[in-house]
């Protein structure tokens, strides 16, 4: 469990993540961003809770829905905003966009536009730690939809037989793009699949930051101790459409409203108030700070020069 200062920081990070994605959603609506993006709104407690359990030297792999993972891992919202606007100062110098934000040196091994695409990569990072004798761990995010890709199966099996220090964290937000997990699988929980690899499977409420944190901490500890991987599942929900073109035909307003009532940020804020770590009036300040930070990031980003066209021909080979 984090110390007190830390806990407010976690709340701030959740707010920052939400504000970032709401801002990007607006920019899309205004036609100011190119391409597409997938929003993490509603799921913040998962990334922020789990990543709080990492130690120096641990790494993560992310997904197409990666802004929250990046912010949780400590990436700079200025450079994230710049990347979304395609600027040379962005994390990928404008070449990657939303789906490829990465900071390999820092240990954020990349968002990934391919569903399940980073699961093999996560095993490779675990392999490197193991073979270098480092007691670091890998936290691999993926959606419940990705759990039906072959690479899920192969990766979990490899991690299991070689006891790689990887925690597979399934964010079960109930849907792929439109297909519900109930139709797409015949199991109660994705974590039931852990049996197939002889590894522990754990399901927690993703809306409870502390639950996610604690389960992740335990799984990461096992990983670092050489006891192998864990399949951890956090039950969560995305409030917004899958991406900008989503008409939400596959779910009801009521369902969305129901989940919004259990909002993870609200819950955590209430908890902090109960714990005496946050006063009601501070809440508005935090919200405003977060908004200001994000506005500032996008303003800065907007004023940066475009990358040079010829730079498109660089960085193919090292």
């Amino acid at each position: 469990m984090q110390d007190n200062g830390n806990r407010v920081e976690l709340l701030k990070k959740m707010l920052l993540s939400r504000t970032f994605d709401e801002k990007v959603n607006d920019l899309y609506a205004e036609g100011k961003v190119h391409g597409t993006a997938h929003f993490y709104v509603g799921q913040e407690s998962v990334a922020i809770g789990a990543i709080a359990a990492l130690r120096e030297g641990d790494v993560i792999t992310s997904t197409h829905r990666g802004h929250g993972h990046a912010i949780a891992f400590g990436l700079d919202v200025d450079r994230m905003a710049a990347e979304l606007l395609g600027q040379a100062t962005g994390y990928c110098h404008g070449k990657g966009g939303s789906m490829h934000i990465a900071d390999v040196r820092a240990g954020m091994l990349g968002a990934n536009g391919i569903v399940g695409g980073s699961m093999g990569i996560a095993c490779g990072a675990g392999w490197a730690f193991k073979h270098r004798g480092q007691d670091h761990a890998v936290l691999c995010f993926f959606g419940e939809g990705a759990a039906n890709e072959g690479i899920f199966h192969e990766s979990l099996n490899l991690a299991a037989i070689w006891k790689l220090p990887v925690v597979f964290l399934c964010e079960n937000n109930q849907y792929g793009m439109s297909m519900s997990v109930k139709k797409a699988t015949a199991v109660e929980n994705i974590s039931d699949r852990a049996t197939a690899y002889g590894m522990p499977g754990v399901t927690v409420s993703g809306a409870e930051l502390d639950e996610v944190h604690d389960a992740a901490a335990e799984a990461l500890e096992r990983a670092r101790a050489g006891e192998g991987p864990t399949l951890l599942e956090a039950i969560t929900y995305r409030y917004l459409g899958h991406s900008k073109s989503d008409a939400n035909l596959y779910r009801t307003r009521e369902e969305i409203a129901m989940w919004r009532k259990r909002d993870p940020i609200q819950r955590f804020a209430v908890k902090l108030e109960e714990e005496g770590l946050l006063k009601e009036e501070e809440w508005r300040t935090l919200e405003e700070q977060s908004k200001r930070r994000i506005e500032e990031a996008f303003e800065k980003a907007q004023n940066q020069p475009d990358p040079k066209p010829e730079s498109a021909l660089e960085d193919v080979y090292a």
Partner: protein
Amino acid sequence: MPSSASREITYREAVREAMVGAMRNDPEVFLMGEDVGVYGGAFGVSRGMVEEFGEDRVVDTPISEAGYVGLCTGAALMGMRPIAELQFSDFITHCMDQLVNQAAKIRYMFGGEGSVPMVVRTPGGAGTGAAAQHSQSLEAWFVHVPGLKVVMPSTPYDAKGLLLSAIDDQNTVLFYEHKLLYNRKEEVPDEPYRVPIGEARVSREGEDVTIATAGLMHHYALEAADALSGKGVEAEVVDLRTLSPMDHGSIARSVEKTGRLVVVEEDVKTAGWGAEVISRIVEGESFYALDRAPARVAAADVPIPYNRSLETYIRPTPEKVVDAVQSLLDARVGVYA
């Protein structure tokens, strides 16, 4: 063109109309893919279809491209007529074994005793800011695989007619759509009709240079041809429509007339299908008809970048086609666009 009634519809609607027509006609035809049901597909191509045909014939799948393309392969081997949709053509990397080692080869390996009449529809191409993993044009891979056919219609009319032919075909057909074509409109007959697989079409006549192309690039070529016309150069444009089997005869006939060849393709230049077009032309008698080195206008040999101006920089554009034709005429060799 059949004489029946027609109206303006989009490329998207033309594709849908072909599927709907085929499904009404034959209970063995079904559509399977990610989010093709109530969502209507990522690009809305199948919107409304599940309402008509139900979830057993317009089938949402888990995110398991190998699994459901494998399933469609098996269903086709049993005589059904599956249409599998891949949400983005980049995801075809997930089902290469099913397509290349199974669907394409089953007939041959079994000595002709069996076939796989499956259609795999998928939107390819760049220009949408979707970056490196959602913008590729990988159709050349399949042109290189005997046993597969590869179709890439550029117009609503051809989309409907070729898709109906593809569904009829006894072989596995890859049907390449393009995200930037979906909203394109044109008069299309109400009635079903077939555009034969394997036949190119001369969509514009001209004497000075042959532009061979397909898909979205066909429209860039036509734009370029218009611009060139203003400069006194008349281009003949050949829309391949089918990449495999490739109708190089139509291109050769045009080249015999014009003596010059520019290929316009959206995939990366190196080892793209344009290289095959060029090779077939220069390997034959038409080599001696060429009075200029042929040229390719293609994407640069890089992954597709996110930033819009970078993306434009590396993609083929009508302007680059104009430039390539002009340098071919002015200098002795084209630009390496």
